[in-house]
């Protein structure tokens, strides 16, 4: 019944649109009901399949269109998906390039020594999987399963996580935490008792004032965030951007505060000062839900805009004006938590300062501020309980009292043999993350890799990390595989389906298959009590009151909220998730642990003469290093450039498009040159480049040697003592104009 009704609606929509080619008709047509029978120019009979994007962590639900031969022709966003609302970002639209890339990993590879030379030899899946299983068994026997470390990202991570837990290892970590958003989760949890999470529950579409601290929405293409920022612009919201660079967002802002790098906490404290001492904070909210306001008021007494001016270079009247704009918009104001927030080592405290500001403005749990998100729990396919490991990521991260996830750098340190290491890691599995680009301090990383008894890497592309592997297992792309259901936190909970839009190219396999095959070889049959992932998903969907058949037709299913309103209602009693149940301006928890209970500004190093702070960020066309070789996206941007202020260019004698090498404060020189882009958009004390370029695997025919790699130049890391984040923005570089590698080049 449902079926025929759906197709009936589809036909009528097509008919109506055929007659009226007016703009009105355009806006009333629902793309997703229409597109099923669409033909792209010159292409017949496209079939559409439900998927969700894997080009970044936003995981937008989409339709993959394939032709009769099974070639994926285009990807279009699913209209009903709150992550994309029918519009993929450039990387998502260009996801076809991931599937078409001829440089893909094609077959399992095993490192072998032939005639004294190490080389990769093609292997069958059986051969490669048998080898992985025997190595894993060997390590378990000799050292315990705990000595197997898993470094992961994205969907494949979930499959291998299950494998590791079943085998008795909980030694895992992902760069997405300690090298990215960890500090903000801890800072907001300490204040509001809840992680920010992904997607961020920022109510941007209804906000009256959006404050971005170094967050470059529009260059990071976190899809629904961009879409809502656009809505906010349409609605006339005030946008305030704090950034030493004229980011795209800064250029769209009512106020751009070109701050001196590393001084953000001073600005945040001065804003608190103005809000409190000008009496323009949300008094009712603070009284009803806050804890420690009096201490905060006393704490920020001397942090006047004049005080902050000397530190931040932001004029006092700008600080006052922007604070008043926030006060006027309260509670419909968002001090955006940002995403990649590992900057200077006091990042949890900066995140705390941002959270406190939101608390003063009463924006957490308010329309136009932050909404209370909700998510559907996808039931676990029944399996016996996991064995209890003797140690795992928690023990490795023990010196950081508020680490909530594995700390990659600690896992790396524990892999370097040292008699003081209480816990020793002997082998790694790396799934879907290119550690060479995602982990700073390459020397330490390579030292750890060198010491490993075994390294297996799972990826779709010959990323730099694969070059260090003993075994490489080629995963097929997201367009060629069925995967775990996506459950998303949002205004309304939803799930999304990914099934294979086509058959895997080459000799590649889905992550779920690879994990299960290894599991069976390790004798973990009872944890893999199914034939394939489809069976698992079918079972899960049944539990959720849906079915595979239904999901294949709709792609995304929304569920009604169960946790009540998205916002606190006027005067409502509300229990926050903090220890006290209140919004904690003063954190007793931090104090007990020996940290500042309220954020304090501390000065950080600044570059010496002749050096410039190395800043880096995202380009809208790429996701880190993983997309640089994608033919469609590489076509949009094939190298990064070094942004240099014209004054600096004059002093240093640099010209536009000139190639330079960079040397950092520790004498590390970039492997590849980068072209100079002279632009007013960057401060004179910093240089800037897009992250992800300068890859050194020659098998990446488009990405190899194009541009410079920021990660390589990040050798000085300040570690956040609260949660273990690796802060990377304290590195300084100078320019080298003559090829420093000339002598050693062959």
């Amino acid at each position, binding site marked *: 019944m449902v079926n025929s009704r759906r197709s009936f609606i589809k036909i009528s929509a*097509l008919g109506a*649109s*055929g007659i009226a*080619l*007016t*703009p*009105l*008709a*355009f*806006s009333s*047509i629902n*793309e997703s009901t*229409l*597109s099923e029978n*669409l*033909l*792209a*120019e010159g292409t017949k009979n496209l079939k559409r399949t439900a998927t969700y994007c894997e080009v970044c962590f936003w995981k937008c639900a989409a339709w993959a269109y394939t032709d009769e031969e099974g070639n994926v*022709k*285009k*990807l*279009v*966003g699913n209209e009903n998906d709150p992550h*994309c609302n*029918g*519009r*993929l*970002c*450039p990387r998502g*639209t*260009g996801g*076809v390039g991931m599937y078409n890339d001829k440089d893909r990993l094609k077959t399992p590879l095993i490192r072998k020594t032939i005639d004294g030379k190490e080389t990769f030899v093609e292997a069958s899946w059986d051969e490669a999987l048998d080898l992985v299983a025997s190595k894993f068994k060997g390590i378990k026997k000799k050292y315990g399963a705990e000595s197997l470390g898993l470094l992961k990202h994205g969907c494949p991570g979930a499959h291998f996580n299950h494998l590791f837990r079943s085998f008795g290892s909980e030694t895992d970590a992902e760069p997405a935490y300690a090298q990215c958003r960890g500090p903000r989760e801890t800072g907001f949890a300490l204040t509001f008792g809840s992680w920010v999470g992904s997607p961020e529950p920022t109510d941007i579409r209804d906000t009256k004032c959006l404050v971005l601290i170094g967050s470059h929405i*529009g*260059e990071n*293409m976190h*899809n629904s965030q*961009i*879409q809502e*920022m*656009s*809505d906010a*612009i349409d609605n006339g919201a005030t946008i305030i951007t704090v950034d030493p660079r*004229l980011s*795209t967002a800064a*250029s*769209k802002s009512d106020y*751009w505060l070109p701050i001196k790098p590393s001084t953000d906490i001073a600005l945040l404290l001065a804003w608190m000062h103005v809000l409190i001492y000008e009496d323009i904070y949300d008094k009712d909210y603070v009284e009803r839900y806050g804890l420690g306001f009096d201490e905060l008021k006393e704490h920020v007494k001397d942090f006047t805009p004049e005080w902050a001016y000397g530190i931040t270079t932001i004029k006092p009247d700008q600080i006052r004006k922007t604070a008043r704009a926030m006060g006027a918009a309260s509670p419909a104001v968002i001090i955006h938590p940002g995403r990649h927030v590992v900057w200077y080592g006091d990042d949890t405290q900066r995140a705390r300062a941002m959270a406190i500001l939101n608390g003063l403005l009463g924006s957490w749990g308010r329309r136009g501020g932050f909404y209370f998100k909700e998510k559907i729990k996808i039931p676990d396919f029944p399996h016996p309980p996991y064995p209890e490991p003797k140690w795992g990521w928690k023990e490795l991260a023990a010196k950081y009292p508020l680490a909530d996830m594995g700390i990659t750098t600690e896992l790396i340190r524990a892999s370097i043999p040292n008699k003081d290491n209480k816990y020793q890691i002997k082998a790694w599995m790396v799934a879907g993350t290119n550690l060479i680009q995602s982990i700073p301090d390459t020397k330490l990383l390579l030292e750890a890799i060198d010491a490993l008894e075994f390294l297996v890497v799972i990826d779709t592309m010959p990323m730099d990390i694969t070059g260090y592997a003993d075994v490489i297992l080629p995963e097929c792309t997201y367009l060629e595989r069925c995967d775990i259901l996506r459950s998303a936190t949002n205004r309304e909970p939803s799930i999304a389906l990914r099934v294979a839009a086509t058959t895997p190219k080459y000799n590649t396999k889905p992550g779920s298959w690879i994990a299960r095959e290894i599991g069976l070889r390790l004798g973990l049959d009872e944890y893999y009590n199914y034939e394939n992932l489809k069976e698992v998903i079918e079972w899960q969907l049944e539990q959720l009151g849906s079915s595979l058949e239904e999901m294949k037709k709709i792609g995304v299913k929304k569920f009604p909220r169960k946790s009540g309103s998205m916002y606190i209602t006027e005067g409502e009693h509300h229990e926050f998730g903090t220890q006290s149940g209140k919004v904690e301006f003063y954190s007793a928890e931090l104090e007990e642990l020996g940290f500042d209970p309220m954020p304090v500004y501390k000065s950080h190093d600044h570059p010496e003469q002749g050096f410039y702070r190395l800043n880096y960020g995202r380009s*809208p*066309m790429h996701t880190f290093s993983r997309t640089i070789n994608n*033919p*469609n*996206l590489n*076509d*949009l941007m094939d190298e990064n450039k070094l942004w240099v*202020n014209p004054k600096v260019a004059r002093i240093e004698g640099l010209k536009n498009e000139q190639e330079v090498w960079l040397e950092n404060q520790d004498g590390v020189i970039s492997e590849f040159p980068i072209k100079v882009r002279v*632009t*007013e*958009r*960057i*401060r004179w004390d910093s240089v800037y480049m897009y992250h992800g370029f300068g890859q050194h695997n020659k098998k990446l025919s488009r990405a190899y040697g194009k541009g410079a790699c920021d990660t390589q130049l990040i050798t000085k890391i300040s570690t956040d003592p609260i949660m273990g984040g690796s802060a990377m923005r304290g590195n300084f570089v100078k320019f080298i104009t003559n090829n420093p590698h000339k002598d050693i080049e062959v």
Partner: protein
Amino acid sequence: MRYAMVIDTLKCVGCSDCVVACQTENNVPIGYCRDWITESVSGTYPTLELELKSERCNHCSSAPCVRCCPTGASHIVEGGIVKVTANECIGCGACIESCPYDARYQHPEGHVDKCTFCHHRLEKGQLPACVSVCPTKCMYFGDLDDPTSEVSQLLKSRKHKVLAPEAGTKPNVYYLIK
């Protein structure tokens, strides 16, 4: 009917989604494009203006490319869309030279190619691929002959400009500005 595209520069972030969506929709070979992004910066730090925008064929009402085409391959269809019939095009390149917007390119198969406002989609009642994909929703499409259309209304209420007005081509792509 006069089709027009209106692009809000206050919202465009220059992400190039329009470029990839056009490529995959229209089988534009890699290395070529029918639309592209331009960036212009003015002022000195920190008093700066940045304008990002998506550009393409302007489907000019007075189109030099159509006038100079020796075979009639370049022509205008209903709604004012400027099109090229591939198998009538001899690839002489006169139109490429004549276009003040550099909107045309020579396809590796020999003929000249350019934006069609996704004519094949319009026929099905769909918006051009670039308009329907844009994450900032900064692009609008419709009929300027209809005073009630969204594009007409936007041009009535917002400050706007066209590119190279001095060329006298009467372009039909408009940019909303501050």
